[in-house]
């Protein structure tokens, strides 16, 4: 090969790099090792994490331990889906493009909005992207009104992006778990580009989006609603509540926890917003022989065509994760998806009763809940969590850091994997932990075998 190129050695090819900039030493990294050793090394690291197989997981806060059916892994691991690039050559990318089209249709059905994109990175950055869109769509308004019920990561990400493209943010507080309607109405005005709500909100409360949205409609601001896809089989969808944009974290649909990613963000809008949307959109068309086919539609919105005038900078997104969601939704199907929603609501209701009955535990708010609930503990939350962990239970998410006003708050998430038996075990663990903390009993460190295995029988 060197001869064909006309060089003596491949080093020669690197001579276009100025001598002074050529690295004169090997990288300070260990030498390569065999596949077996890499596997062993990473298995050893993985073994130092306590995952949802080794602990009963009531953690949620946007990502949930749902069961991912085996066909999802089997299909997304096929080379034909796993290894191609973004489908720039539609003739040989019909599989991926049609899957995107099916995904868009499913998500559009879930949110009851007419248009869905092929997806963004994840939930919070999708919220920030909605802000960017809102400025353009509102003809340059640069004020966002945001409910404190919106996921803290979403609020923080929106703030980060806003410092870039320039926008100010007004936050509206919560009253007994729900967005303060009066405060919201007061905050929205003619300069408001968008109003951001989340339902169920971060404290698990189901918001009355329709009512809250009135203020936005009145002042011509976009109504942006973040939602949990797993609740859309039972809760009134954003599209029926007057939302202009519905978006959210897609992980619950067919994606593993993966310590937070990769997952995907779904993003839906009204017809009016179609040509302003961020990211890829698959569209149906025909080939020269009249055969049905699919392509990346409306590319004139995108960076590779429009460059600085693009509606967004996104290029590589999360196609494979969206495919996983598509397969999971096909597997659940019309009936299964609704039943799953019902199951979550009922088990959550059971958990609410069961846990509120524990001495030292009360519900943090009285608002309706769907799949996650907020508790108030009469003992230091961190200490209680530690005691539960020692019994093999991740009892939930401590609200204190992000909601100082709820320093005693605990967020408990329910999935179809959390059996009644496990919920009862949580109640017991919480009760014991709180009692112990009040009585300052020494922490019992003997038995920390996972209870999942017993639960399995």
């Amino acid at each position, binding site marked *: 090969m060197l001869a064909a190129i006309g060089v003596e050695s491949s080093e020669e090819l690197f001579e276009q790099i100025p001598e002074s900039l050529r690295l004169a030493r090997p990288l300070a990294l260990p030498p390569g090792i065999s596949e077996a050793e890499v596997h062993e090394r990473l298995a050893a690291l993985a073994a130092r994490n306590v995952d949802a*197989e080794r602990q009963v997981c009531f953690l949620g806060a946007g990502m949930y331990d749902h069961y991912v059916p085996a066909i999802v892994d089997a299909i997304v691991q096929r080379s034909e889906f796993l290894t191609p690039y973004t489908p720039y050559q539609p003739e040989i990318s019909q599989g991926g493009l049609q899957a995107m089209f099916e995904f868009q249709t499913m998500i559009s059905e879930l949110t009851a909005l007419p248009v869905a994109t092929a997806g963004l990175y994840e939930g919070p950055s999708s919220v920030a992207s909605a802000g960017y869109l809102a400025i353009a769509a509102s003809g340059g308004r640069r004020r966002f009104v945001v409910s404190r019920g919106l996921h803290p990561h979403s609020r923080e990400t929106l703030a980060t992006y806003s410092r870039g493209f320039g926008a100010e943010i007004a936050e509206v507080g919560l009253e007994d778990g729900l967005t303060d309607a009066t405060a919201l109405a007061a905050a929205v005005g003619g300069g408001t580009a968008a109003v951001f709500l989340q339902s169920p909100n971060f404290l698990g409360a189901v918001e009355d989006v329709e009512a809250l949205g009135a203020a936005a409609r009145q002042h011509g601001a976009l109504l942006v609603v973040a939602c949990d896809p797993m609740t859309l089989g039972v809760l009134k969808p954003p599209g029926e509540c007057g939302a202009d944009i519905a978006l959210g974290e897609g992980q619950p649909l067919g994606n593993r926890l993966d310590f937070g990613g990769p997952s995907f963000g779904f993003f839906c809008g009204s017809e009016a917003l179609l040509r302003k949307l961020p990211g890829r959109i698959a569209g149906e068309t025909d080939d020269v022989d009249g055969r049905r*086919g699919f392509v990346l539609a409306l590319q004139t919105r995108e960076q590779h065509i429009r460059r600085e005038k693009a509606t967004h900078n996104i290029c590589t997104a999360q196609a*494979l994760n969206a495919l996983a969601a598509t397969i999971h939704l096909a597997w659940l199907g019309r009936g299964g998806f609704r039943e799953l929603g019902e199951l979550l609501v009922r088990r959550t209701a059971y958990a609410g009763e069961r846990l509120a009955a524990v001495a030292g535990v009360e519900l943090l708010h009285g608002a309706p809940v769907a799949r996650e609930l907020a508790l108030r503990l009469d003992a230091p939350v961190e200490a209680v969590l530690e005691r539960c962990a020692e019994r093999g239970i991740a009892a939930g998410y401590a609200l204190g850091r992000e909601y100082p006003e709820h320093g005693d708050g605990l967020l408990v998430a329910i999935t179809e994997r959390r059996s009644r038996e496990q919920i009862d075990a949580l109640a017991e663990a919480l009760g014991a932990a709180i009692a112990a903390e009040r009585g300052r009993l020494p922490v019992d460190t003997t038995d920390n075998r996972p209870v999942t295995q017993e639960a399995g029988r």
Partner: protein
Amino acid sequence: MTASEAPMQREPAQTIFERSKPGRRAAVLPAAEVPEPPLEELIPARLLRTAPPRLPEVAEPEIVRHYNRLSRRNFDLDSGFYPLGSCTMKHNPRLNERVAALPGHARLHPAQDPVRAQGALELMYLLQESLAEICGLPHVSLQPSAGSHGELAGLLLTRAFHADRGEERHKVLAPDTSHGTNPASVTMAGYEIVKVATDERGGVAVDDLRAKVDEDVACLMLTNPNTLGLFDENIAEIAALIHAAGGTLYYDGANLNAVMGHSRPGDMGFDIVHLNLHKSFSQPHGGGGPGAGPIAVSERIEPFLPRPQVVRREGGSSGPFFDLDHERPKSIGRLRGFQGNFGVFVRAYAYILSLGADGLAEASETAVLNANYLKARLAEGRAGKHLPVAFERHCMHEFVLSGKPMKRELGIATLDLAKRLLDFGFHPPTVYFPLLVEEALMIEPTETEAKETLDAFAEAIEQILAEAEQDPEIARQAPYTTPVRRLDEVKATRKPVVRQPL
């Protein structure tokens, strides 16, 4: 039904919704195990959904068949050569999928107490350290979800950096060869893009740059080697210019595959670098993601890195403790939920462990060797005649040809050549980019391709050009053997159908 139509062409596209039959389903759900009152008793009726979403109703066997069939309508890296310039379509080791799927990674909740996620946090820390060494910069944030996200992060860091010094600047410079995400990110970060010309050697036109650099320039974004596959020999001078004017220097790391272990952005004077783990570090592209776009930065940028940051605390007896640091007063804040695309980090770290220091350097060396060999092969015969290289120098990991003479002399455009390649079982190169080069073909073979494959590709191009000399229509009408033939993209944009009507 003879073979006159390729089998798949006979199979008309049918969506999962069109396979739906009322009452069918795959899922069996666990029993409720708890009281089952009507939902109205738990949630006010006005907040409930009346009609369920019209998801398809299909049994598992047909779901599996549907998506397996769909998959065969894709061309993929495990089927053949994929020289898509700027995308680094290198082999994706299956080992990485295996280790990413270990329950300790795959079922670890992102809000797990760091005490019970030490393995994951240590892995992230080790990856940060490795990428820092590879980039020649001291600090790394893994948070950005892809390259463009890394670019935005870099520009927000730049803004915070200037603001911290009480400055507000408005312009960001980038060469006319830059990737579309660069200008798009500039706008998104609230800056104004200013284009810098390219000189006859394919590098930044230093005079033009000098003319445009001033106190209002916040940053210069460069790719090096650039999108022509050429290393900018003036990089030191360029860096000096920008730094003298008080700007930051941003390195778009999409082309890092050319220089791993050979040259480091930090040593070139860059302040901020993004890496595409889904390019240089073998994360599969998944048909458009997921990826990850970690950023490496210099000391002066470090205070502004996103929150939270993975840190190593020198614990006591129990050894070091890995933690998430949220207390970063000057941070630009979060760019996304939780800690980033961890699953991608696992794959990238497995890749780095597998290759090691020598392996990474060898990978880049082979990538450059393969590119120059293919460039040489394509300088012969008809390709040499009709498809000249845009800038005649040794290239790095990729190179750009111009289809302009081909179009003039043979009457087939770069697009026609690309489509005809599909019939030969090859994925075409990146086409019509960079914009600077007319009828551009951007070819990146990567290090994981065998010489036979490069030769076969060169021969296919030769054949297509020979064919075009006889009858250009063949290429103009191509492809013929793909599941569908040329698609009407105009219609898809004029009258967009972006979901199935139900």
